[in-house]
């Protein structure tokens, strides 16, 4: 099982190369029955933000959104639901993630491969986070040095 809560699996999978995700999804047996619980769609989501001066809500803008909610049943009759909402306009990407979500949630055969890909995604996300923190670390302003030479130089 993944060390991440289920709600973060899609985020981790979003970080891995598309080919890795596609390869994993195609590795599951074709004999599994995959049926949609809801129509897979691509469209837009609206981002609602709380502005931080008076606390008003407003719409900042939209973002692409692909959704998939499916049920997968194995040859042995094991069944699980999986879903994915991802900031993307490719439905097939959401379908692959939803399949991974179902496999890992119910520990269907092959769940270890999903967990491993999520681990890869966690590491890639951590790299991105380190890059952003490096930007901050390199540009932190040291005001104490300015104090040493007096306020006039501040």
């Amino acid at each position, binding site marked *: 099982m993944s060390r991440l*809560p*289920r*709600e*973060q699996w*899609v*985020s981790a999978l*979003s970080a891995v190369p598309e080919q890795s995700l596609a390869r994993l999804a195609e590795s599951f047996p074709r004999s599994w029955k995959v049926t949609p619980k*809801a129509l897979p*769609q*691509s*469209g*837009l*989501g*609206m*981002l*609602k*933000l*709380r*502005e*931080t*001066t*008076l*606390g*008003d*809500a*407003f*719409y*900042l*803008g*939209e*973002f*692409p*959104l692909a*959704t998939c*909610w499916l049920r997968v049943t194995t040859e042995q009759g094991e069944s699980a*639901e*999986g*879903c994915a*909402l*991802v*900031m*993307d*306009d490719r439905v097939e990407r959401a379908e692959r993630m939803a399949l991974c979500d179902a496999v890992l*949630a119910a520990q269907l055969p092959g769940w270890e491969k999903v967990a491993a890909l999520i681990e890869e995604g966690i590491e890639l996300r951590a790299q991105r*986070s*380190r*890059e*952003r*923190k*490096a*930007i*901050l*670390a*390199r*540009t*932190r*302003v040291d*005001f104490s040095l*300015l104090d040493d030479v007096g306020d006039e130089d*501040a």
Partner: protein
Amino acid sequence: MAYVAIKGGGQAIEGSKAVLEYLRTRQGARARPLQADTIENQLRLLHGRVLSEGGVYHPRLASLAIKQAQGDSLEASFILRAYRSTVPRLAETELLDSRKMRITRRISSAFKDIPGGQMLGATTDYHLRLMRMELLNESPEQFRAISGEWFKNLNVDEIPDTFPKVLEQLRKDGLLAPLDEQRGQQSPFDITREPLIFPVSRSAALATMARGEQGSLLAIAYSNMRGYGDVHPTVAELRVGYLPVLLPHPITGQPMEVGEVELTECEVVAMYEADGEGGKPLFTLGYGACFGHNEVKAISMAILDRSLQNGIQHGPRNPSEDPEFVLLHVDGIESMGFCTHYKMPHYVTFQSDMDRLRATQAKQ
């Protein structure tokens, strides 16, 4: 007088499209077509501008729009906004909180010591505007070496994931009004679904400015800065970073991260005011935010938010305090459309103008 069918217009239009394509590709045998990733990374700020003015955070299509529009930011934003009108709305996020931003830049001009510290991130603020001639002949090897060496010997362990807001300290000190939790529960105005009919809510104003054209926002905010207004802002905090976008997981119901958007956010502190009910005077505030890294836009929007609040409270005393003036003139796509429509044939109306002028002249 009647409309006149013109022969050959279709061919000329097709020819014009072909000329555009020719000019895009005429560079020569060594030329390579622009890749979407290249536009997103090497024209990062232009790309952010199109994301924000197009009103859709779709990095890949924003790059395509820039390529297709050959770098015209208004035209690219128009293409992106046209795209959004063709796809359905599937969901709306819960109220997102910008305190959760994964920061890449954070400064304050109000205090030097802010909780968590100031980090300049990527900025040209302290650059000399001198030509870097070496970029004219930059080799691929030199180009790649810069990012390759970047992470060496950097300790990032002490950098937190998120940072508190500067305004929180001012609020604790009683210099700002407390945040009203109820205000965030009101449904915002959706400018993509409803026309602006004045007076409009603040949420409509913020949404309009968030996808407004940078130059228009700057010009009207600048009029306020120069004297046609009295906001006199101090930037309490300007932050750039990535905001996680959350939607409920359909099975568990818990918030799940579907992606993240780059965001620039600015909070300005303005002149203090009494509340008119005998309370203590408090600083007034303005807010600006937009997709992408665009500080001029976020600051201009924050100034205009404050000036519009002044205008609503006291009556507009200058253009930047008039919601109708500001909000109906900052949309780049609308204003560009009106401007460029003048290039379209006006043969009939102009014929009419000439007829009337001749008739008037004949009477004299």
